[in-house]
């Protein structure tokens, strides 16, 4: 009798274990539901990043992918293939998508879309709140005064400044030389006029300056490369 009783109890113990597990899990879920609902948004914001891991290209900065581009033609390749109308190619953050040139002062600088210390090490940076080169509005580009824009203050009113991209050539003429404080946003804000704003820190001996020096340039010509078939037509 005792033996058969023991046998009958075995499933009870197993079922009890399963029941206990399910019951505890249900109680835990119930208890944790309220704090989870409260903190869900914060958790989602804190751990939402799906950006790529740091790579060699990104100088160790997670999510930053720097793309250099040596395919940008820095001279006009023939009038037949250029038109005033065309399509721009929207760059990604960290893309080198233009070359800034001013023959008068011997300036030729790669231009990256976006601004960060890593990009400023490699060239001039275009702030993402400005328009993409070729669109109507204010194109704002800056660089360090001790590296790429060391000669920016040598540009004179009337000098020609050219932006070369893979989709076109955009020519500007220096209209105004400006000096402003870094807190003053007047020159870097979006505008309805077609213009190019170049600026850098005011060169200062020993220490940084809060003063910025820049050049405002007016658009002179906008020439887009046409696709092969379109050009032949």
């Amino acid at each position, binding site marked *: 009798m005792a033996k058969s009783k023991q046998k009958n109890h075995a499933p009870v113990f197993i079922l009890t274990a399963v029941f206990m597990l399910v019951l505890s899990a249900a109680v835990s879920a119930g208890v944790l539901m309220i704090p989870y609902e409260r903190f869900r948004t914060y958790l989602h914001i804190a751990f939402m990043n799906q950006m790529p891991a740091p790579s060699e290209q990104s100088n160790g900065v*997670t999510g930053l992918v720097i793309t250099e581009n040596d395919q940008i033609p820095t001279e006009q390749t023939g009038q037949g293939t250029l038109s005033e109308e065309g399509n721009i190619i929207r760059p990604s953050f960290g893309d080198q998508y233009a070359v800034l040139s001013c023959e008068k002062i011997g300036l030729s600088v790669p231009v990256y879309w976006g601004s960060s210390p890593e990009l400023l*090490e490699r060239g001039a940076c275009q702030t993402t709140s400005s328009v993409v080169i070729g669109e109507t509005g204010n194109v704002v580009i800056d660089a360090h005064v001790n590296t790429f824009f060391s000669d920016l203050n040598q540009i004179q009113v009337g000098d020609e400044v050219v932006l070369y991209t893979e989709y076109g050539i955009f020519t500007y003429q220096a209209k105004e030389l400006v000096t402003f404080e870094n807190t003053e946003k007047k020159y870097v804000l979006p505008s309805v006029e077609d213009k190019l704003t170049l600026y850098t820190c005011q060169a200062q001996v020993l220490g940084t300056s809060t003063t910025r020096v820049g050049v405002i340039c007016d658009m002179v010509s906008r020439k887009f490369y046409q696709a092969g078939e379109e050009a032949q037509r």
Partner: protein
Amino acid sequence: MKRIPHYFLNVLFTLFLVFSLICTEMTLLMQRSALNVNMFHVVVQQEGLTDKAYDKLETYFKTRANSTGIPEAVFLRVVDKEMIYNGIMESVTQSFEYLNGNTSEYQFTMDFTEMEQSVTEFFEEYADVNGYQKDDIYQEKLTAVIEESEKEILFVVDNFKFTMLYEKGWLAKLRQVVGYLNVAVTVCLAVTIVLAVIIVFLNKKKMINIPYWLGLSAFTAGVLVSVPCFWVTHTNYFSGFVVTDPQIFSAVVGYLNLLVNRAFVMAVVTICIGIVGFGGFGALCLFQRTEE
């Protein structure tokens, strides 16, 4: 007839014991790991935070050289990895001095005498070579460069952002938690022991069942803690941390992952205790059957 209420009493107290065990595990985890200074030391070593902080400062001074004209070597010849490591450890130590109630406020600073000397020497040399007048503006510039550099070093060295936590008032809240932590651990342990004794008492007539109910509590508590820990580790949940700065990312994610690992180990040990309980129960049953 008496058996059914007796069974449900066992289930009820086992359920209480499960949650009491989980609370004990969590409070112990907080006391021994989450809010323990050694845990932060381990994270600093494991995640190579000294090297990351040094790299960040190196980049900062190199970048600054582009706009200030002051070579990075002026700073980096005195700001070495040893200085950064000592700074990191000091920030952790000071934060725990505050958390443990040994100081009334969080005070973290470093000795910048050598760096100040190095910058001053550079300025003086520059002024002498270039005939730069050492007037008020010169002094202002020197002070500004030293202050900015010190501020940046303190910011970078403060890996776990204790200064920010202190300024936002979160460290003060944690200080209150730390104050109650020992009491919480004691209470949880006492409740666990009381519940275990109740289960023993409930089964005093059939003591063979005691390892089963105690083992079941430990096993269930272990599973309930280990499953979320396993999920977090398996999905690499913390790697989605939104702050992408390599140094802060490593500090926070390294800390959280280590904490989860320790909780997981604790849970596995609890599961093992449960399995031992089940094993003991099975062995006792077999022994009893053989005797009969």
